[in-house]
């Protein structure tokens, strides 16, 4: 019989599709109700002029199109300025926190993975501990540590350094570095930089770097997240076959060569995961800002996630608040795609068709 069973829907496997849908129905329902539907609603709020009175879907709520988004990018005003400041802060935050936490996690994993190290399980637990502690509790502890007369400044004082007023210091680290090197006068920055810049923020403002206050939040986040990422690296490290390492030993590779050319390439999937999770987590930073600084001092710890919350729930600008969260969503997606493209596997996936001629070849 040439009649294939697949043509008929009956038979022994006939109900599989129905059963499959039935099994995933709870998940689909929950995701739809609590994820897709609210996102759709928020999308509507972001293009509406809803003032917070009654339902946003009531007949009288005006549709304002891209007005809320235009306020964030085009209209010269406080909304755009605050938003751009928050973007700047978060850019520096991501630029410092993601590499730092990835390197630290990798280093910790390599150390803990050593076979000769005694008490590895103790160190694994110790390094992972900050990750399982409530971020609010850790934030409060950091508030005490970095208080003007706190432990950090006391330690600095022991070696003769007068520590800054961490949470009250809005000075940017880049500004401080430039000033320290004598390149610019921080009190009177060059007019070329203060004159103009993209999105209503002067180049001087864009180049501020993370503020002293922000750097404490960066330290906190690096410390808390590196434990989780260490665990991911550790799992990947233990997957590296011993034979590969032995083979490289026989080939005469030294420790650094083994790490660079054997271990690291095998850790690439884990590295991708860690950097992606890091990018997403750092762009969404909220709890630490909410607990520790609320954007102060001088808006230098303001982040888009916190600004979105503040704009919606305390300034009653629900439309703009929702618009900020959608821009944030787009930023995260673009960053992840970009990072995926950068970390793509160059050895295996070569472009099949080249549209440029290879040098010295005729075809």
């Amino acid at each position, binding site marked *: 019989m040439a009649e294939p069973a697949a043509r008929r829907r009956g038979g022994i496997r006939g109900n599989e599709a129905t059963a499959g849908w039935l099994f995933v129905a709870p998940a689909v329902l929950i995701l739809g109700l609590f994820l897709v539907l609210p996102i759709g609603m*928020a999308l509507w709020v972001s293009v509406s002029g809803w003032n*917070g009175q009654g*339902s946003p879907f*009531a007949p009288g709520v005006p549709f304002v199109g891209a007005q809320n988004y235009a306020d964030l990018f085009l209209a010269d*005003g406080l909304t755009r300025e605050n938003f751009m400041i928050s973007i700047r802060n978060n850019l520096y935050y991501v630029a410092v926190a993601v590499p730092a936490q990835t390197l630290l996690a990798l280093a910790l994993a390599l150390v803990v993975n050593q076979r000769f190290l005694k008490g590895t399980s103790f160190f694994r637990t110790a390094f992972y501990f900050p990750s399982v502690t409530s971020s*609010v509790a850790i934030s409060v502890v950091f508030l005490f540590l970095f208080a003007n007369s706190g432990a950090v400044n006391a330690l600095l004082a022991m070696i003769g350094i007068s520590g800054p007023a961490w*949470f009250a210091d809005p000075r940017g680290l880049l500004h401080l570095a430039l000033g320290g090197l004598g390149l610019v006068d921080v009190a009177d920055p060059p007019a070329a930089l203060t004159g103009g810049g993209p999105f209503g923020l002067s180049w001087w403002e864009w180049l501020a770097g993370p503020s002293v206050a922000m750097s404490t939040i960066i330290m906190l986040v690096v410390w808390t997240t590196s434990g989780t990422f260490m665990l991911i690296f550790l799992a990947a490290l233990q997957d590296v076959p011993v034979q590969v390492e032995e083979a490289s030993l026989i080939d005469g590779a030294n420790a650094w060569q083994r790490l660079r050319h054997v271990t690291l390439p095998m850790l690439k999937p884990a590295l991708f995961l860690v950097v992606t999770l890091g990018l997403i987590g750092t762009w969404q930073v909220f*709890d630490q800002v909410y607990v520790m600084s609320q954007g102060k001092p001088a808006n230098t710890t303001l982040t888009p996630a916190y600004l979105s919350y503040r704009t919606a729930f305390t300034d009653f600008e629900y439309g703009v608040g929702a618009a900020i969260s959608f821009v944030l969503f787009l930023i995260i997606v673009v960053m992840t795609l970009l990072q995926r493209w950068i970390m793509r596997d160059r050895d295996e996936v070569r472009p099949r068709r080249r549209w440029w001629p290879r040098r010295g070849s005729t075809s």
Partner: protein
Amino acid sequence: MGRVGLRAFAAACLLVSAACGAEPGPVPQRTGPAALQVLIGSSGAAETKAVTDAAAAWSAASGNSVTVIPAQDLDQQLGQAFAGSSPPDVFYVDAARFADFASVGALEPYAEALPAAGEFYGTLRQAFTYQGRFYCAPKDFATLALQVNEELWARAGLTAADVPRDWTQLTAVAERIAAKGITPLVVGDTVERIGAFLVQAGGWLISPDGARATADSPENLTALQYVQQLLRARLARYPSALDTGWAGEAFGRGLAAMTIEGNWIKGALAGDYPGVRYTVHELPAGPAGEGTLSFTTCWGISARTPYRAQAVAFVEAMTAVDQQLAFASAYGVMPSVTTARDRYLQAFPADRAFLDSADHAQGPVNAPKMGNVLSDFDTQLQRLAVADPQAILRRLQRNMTAALRG
């Protein structure tokens, strides 16, 4: 849990609001015994208990039932309640947020018709008037005054006669205190404290009718330049520079000889720093005379309540002279009606400086959409010591004008 919790919470309130869409148009009124929901932003256990007791007494006498709900975060909970079309019938409205609520039609303008409408202090009536209508009855109020730490005062060789009466004396006294190595004045770094200097210089941020920004004025410039001069000479410090959360903490710990705070400092010092001895005086006068700021809350009635008449009766009972004096002794606020003034001063003679300031007190900026603008102004004030006051005021003027237009 922060992020996930907030997200789930935001989703939940959107769902709730979608489920019960608002019916536009006037709300049909119900007569007879009402079940009133009262949402309060309580200052603490004492206030919650006092209001709950007063509400229980009123409900027993009037036959209505009242549920008093203390809010964790009043602004946010009210925002949610309005978004969900199920606002409480009666709720506290802070004067700084009043215009936001009034401008979107959330409040019932009932206060004009109250028999006691004329007895509220002028500054408080003004604080709850939007576009010419007096909306809600002020609950109580507080003003800023000067607190002097007696021990540090004596250590600096000063006497009661040296308490500064104007800016010149303030600078002179502060220099004498600083010469002894004591921080003279700690003052909060927000418009809610520094604004008092603007009033003393004869300026303010907005026109009395709330229609025009008046931030960029020579009077305001004089005030900011004076404060800047104090900050630069380290005669005045911000609380964060003294490693404290607010000026009351710095004052209570004896880190500064003077501070500028409101009535609430009384309870805070008694609770946290019972040992500190201090006196309270009216703020030093500026070039345009005396001036201070007033802070107040009103009993807002929702425009969507079906029990308007009962809610008004409840507010009348809560703002009656005897009831306000009971509140005053329970949690240390000043009655909002002039008719309670003499009896209040008999009971609390030490509060004369706070109460006498009411005559030249300025309420918060009374216009919608100012939260963002004023928090930006606060940000600028934090760097007042190194910034250009004229630029700060120009920026504020521009932002306020934009917010008033939009």
